[in-house]
């Protein structure tokens, strides 16, 4: 703030000298204690509770309902049936390509191998053949585990090198007989599976939430031990670090490669 601007303020324009124009405060009384003070206090408290309760309901019940839109998959897909029928189980449709990339959800050209014509009685199959196979259109599947554009995820690293089970991230979807409702966050466009079914973000199974922190947790564990967890893990980690400092040749503690965080560097999972 500079002097010149302050002086531009209208107060600089000759304050009025006339007494009449000058506003002077009038003496006033201090507030009188109100009558029925206790009653008023209770009312105020009641309203506080009301507001408190209302906001809890809005925040915990109404808000999640508003936040997510519910969408139904274009075709009600039966995983269990397909797994049983397909020769190579899951890998029949979800396989690695030669370049190491993962096929993900199969395209219509893959489905046609079996469903060029209607095979059975299922009305969903009929719908599928009629609306997509015959029209040569891809099915606009809603992907529960869709990656954001900023993420690079190597299925090969996790499934082949680290030998992780699909279930760890995707849950027992292979056993499902029908597609569940896809919930999409109206603000972010993310699948609800990312934040977790539970609005508070608490998860019981590893696949129930797939935020960056969930990746990071696992990557931190990998850096120390694969089986231990919690306190035990941090204790052994401390111990290993001490040993590694004393005898660097005997034990090497794998620190993450990031200079900033000492976790795995950002470019491991981001693109």
């Amino acid at each position: 703030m500079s002097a010149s601007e302050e002086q531009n303020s209208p107060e600089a324009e000759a304050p009025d000298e006339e007494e009449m124009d000058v506003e002077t405060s009038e003496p006033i009384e201090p507030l009188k204690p109100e009558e029925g003070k206790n009653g008023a206090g209770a009312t105020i408290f009641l309203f506080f509770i009301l507001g408190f309760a209302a906001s809890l309901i809005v925040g915990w019940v109404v808000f999640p309902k508003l936040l997510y839109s519910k969408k139904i998959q274009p075709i009600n897909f039966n995983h269990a049936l397909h797994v049983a029928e397909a020769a190579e189980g899951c890998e029949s449709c979800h396989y690695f390509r030669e370049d190491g990339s993962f096929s993900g959800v199969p395209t219509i050209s893959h489905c046609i191998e079996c469903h060029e014509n209607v095979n059975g009685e299922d009305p969903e199959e009929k719908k599928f053949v009629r609306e997509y196979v015959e029209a040569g259109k891809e099915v606009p599947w809603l992907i529960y585990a869709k990656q954001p554009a900023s993420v690079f995820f190597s299925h090969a690293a996790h499934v082949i090198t680290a030998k992780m089970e699909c279930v760890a991230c995707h849950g027992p979807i292979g056993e499902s007989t029908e597609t569940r409702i896809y919930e999409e966050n109206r603000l972010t466009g993310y699948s609800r599976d990312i934040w977790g079914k539970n609005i508070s973000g608490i998860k019981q199974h590893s696949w129930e939430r797939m935020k960056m922190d969930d990746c990071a947790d696992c990557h931190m564990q990998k850096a120390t031990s694969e089986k231990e967890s919690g306190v035990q893990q941090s204790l052994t980690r401390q111990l290993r670090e001490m040993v590694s400092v004393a005898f660097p040749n005997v034990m090497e503690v794998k620190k993450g490669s990031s200079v900033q965080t000492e976790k795995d560097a950002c470019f491991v999972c981001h693109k």
Partner: protein
Amino acid sequence: MKIDRRSFLSFIVGGAAGTALTPLPWKITDDLSIWSQNWPWTPVPPNGEVTFVNSVCRLCPGGCGITVRKVDARAVKIEGMDGYPVNDGGICPLGLSGLQLLYGPTRIPYPMKRKGNRGDGKWEKISWEKAVSEVVTKLGEIRKNNRPHGLACISESDRGTVAGLMARFMSAFGSQNFIRQPSMEDSYELALYLMHGIRAEAGFDIENAAFVLSFGSGVIEGWGSPVRMFRANSKLIKTGGKVVQIEARLSKSAAKSDKWIPINPGTETALALAMAHVIIKEGLYNKDFIENHAFGFEDWTDGQGNKQQGFKSLVTATYAPENVAEATGVEKAVIVSLARHFARASKPLAICGRGQGRTSSAIGEFLAVQALNALVGNINQEGGFHAISDNDYIDWPEIETDQIASNGLQNGRLDEAGSENYASVRYLPHRFFENIIAETGYPIQVLFAAGANPLYSLPDTKAVKAALDKVPFIVSFSSFMDETAQYSDIILPDHTYLERYEDVPTPIGLQKPIIGLTRPVVSPQLDTKHLGDVILGIAKGLGGSMAQAFPWKSYEACLEKTLGRKLDTLLDKGYWSPAVFSVPEWIKAFETASGKFEFVVSDQDGNGDRKTKPIADWYTGVESQGDPVTYPLLLIPYDSMRLVNGFVGDPPFVIKTVEDTVLKGKDVFIEINPKTAKQLGLSEGKYARLTTPKGNAKVRVHLFEGIKEGIIALPRGLGHTAYDSYIADKGVNYNELIGAVYDPVSGLDAAWGIRAKLGKA
């Protein structure tokens, strides 16, 4: 109970406290940031299966192999094809930007017919049937009127099956007026025809040369096949080969060369002859070649018994270094030393063709440079100059012309190429347009523009436009809305090179013949049609002998038939080259009257009679246009890999790489020596008015120590009025400021610059 202000406040406070204990504020804060990470208006490219398709780039005559990376049906990246003989993985900025042309806004989406006046940019969408039938009707009319020679076609190239079909169409129709866009090929072809006696392409074994003497050729600025030249240049550097650049301006090639010899522009012929003088005087030439395989070195006697001057006496008499030192601006000692280095080098090679070689030049300059190659005996030698005979894989049945066509063909070419005056020249595009304006010869009623954009890329665009105004019906086959397409009457858009099959003949300047195959990388994105198929369609529509001349069902069928078994190799490897190839030995290399390399230039009429102009008339350059008093400065153009100068304009990626000392906003910079600028009262960044005898333009000043006093330079490739907003109306088209200058002996346009003046704007 009274609900007063305080109760309400209390309710709010309770609500706030409660809200803080719900996920609401935290989730919204988090989600808003996630929203900002996934703004719906920021595109997310879909993932998919990655495949690679090999093809050949068609954006310049360079003919590089490309590998296109696809994700599902989308082409996402063009890369150089590893192992391709031309470019082996390397690729130029334009080639990399091909997808911007494929998917870009400059594409012509469907056949269109002009509404309103020419150049208004108002178009009516029409069907392919209608488009073809319109052209057929128009052509039918002129045939009916017995004026088939009123059809002309201007094309980027005259090689390969598509150009071949077009040329065949013209012949069958009855017109000789097939015209190729000018380039250094015109001059090289003519020089080879005159000196070697063959119709052949110039090949340069630069990779194996030890000393490359470049007369202004942009060795690393797009001359020849650009990427191949870059690789060759790198190889030279790594193997210790030397490059000497003779050029008026410190170009990239000059800066990267081992030695830059600044020269006054337009005096290259004199310098080459002075070097020849030194080489001959000092006996440094290849005695075997000169004595046994060359004619016209010594004085000789023609068929009429007249004594004629030979090359030796020409240069010894006239071109002593001290005689040319002043004119060329190159000191005598430098000329002598350069001549010695050149002649003594193990594998010397002299090349010419200014900048990217996108213009023709005076034949004298090419003859003089080729004479240097002959003197050092590098013709058809390793590391030398190779004459590559047309690798003629196209063997189509003879055309059976009908009477109308035969009559039409009786009329010579409107551009007078091949006429008595310009006997050996094949194409003279500037003369074609001038004759239209002057109404010499006969009127042109229909003009095809196929892969060529004469309204932008020929000198004196105003004159070209005036000529086009006299042509009642212009058909453009362009894939892109270029200047000529914009000024046409009907557009039958071709597929882009990424959507079609096409054979690619030996790229310009390559020392061995190869055929490449352009193939569809993606399915046609718009309602376009292969030019080959359109030609077939029009011929069929015309019926009769026209239809008979095109016995193929489709272009693809024609290509299959033409290439035969080569096609399998092409589909498999991406290119075909002869299993064994070598250029002929000296004894078999020349098909002149003497059967030798000829220094003298003479018309060979087959019965041994030689008629010629004096040798001194041939070995000469041309002056620039304009009088030096009114126009004290010399304007020369320069080429850059970042400024595309062919039948397409700079795609957005390429124009982005242009330096801010070349283009700023919409203003182009003119390069000027600081001393000259000071004399004119101009300083860096100032606006100036550039005037030449042909036109004027507003430019900005860029001081450059790499240019001689009195010379100013303007880039080629800017000043488009068509295409998209990424390129249109940026800078000035050099061709608007320059006119053709005739080479009196060949008729070729030999302009290398123009006189100019620069004043404050």
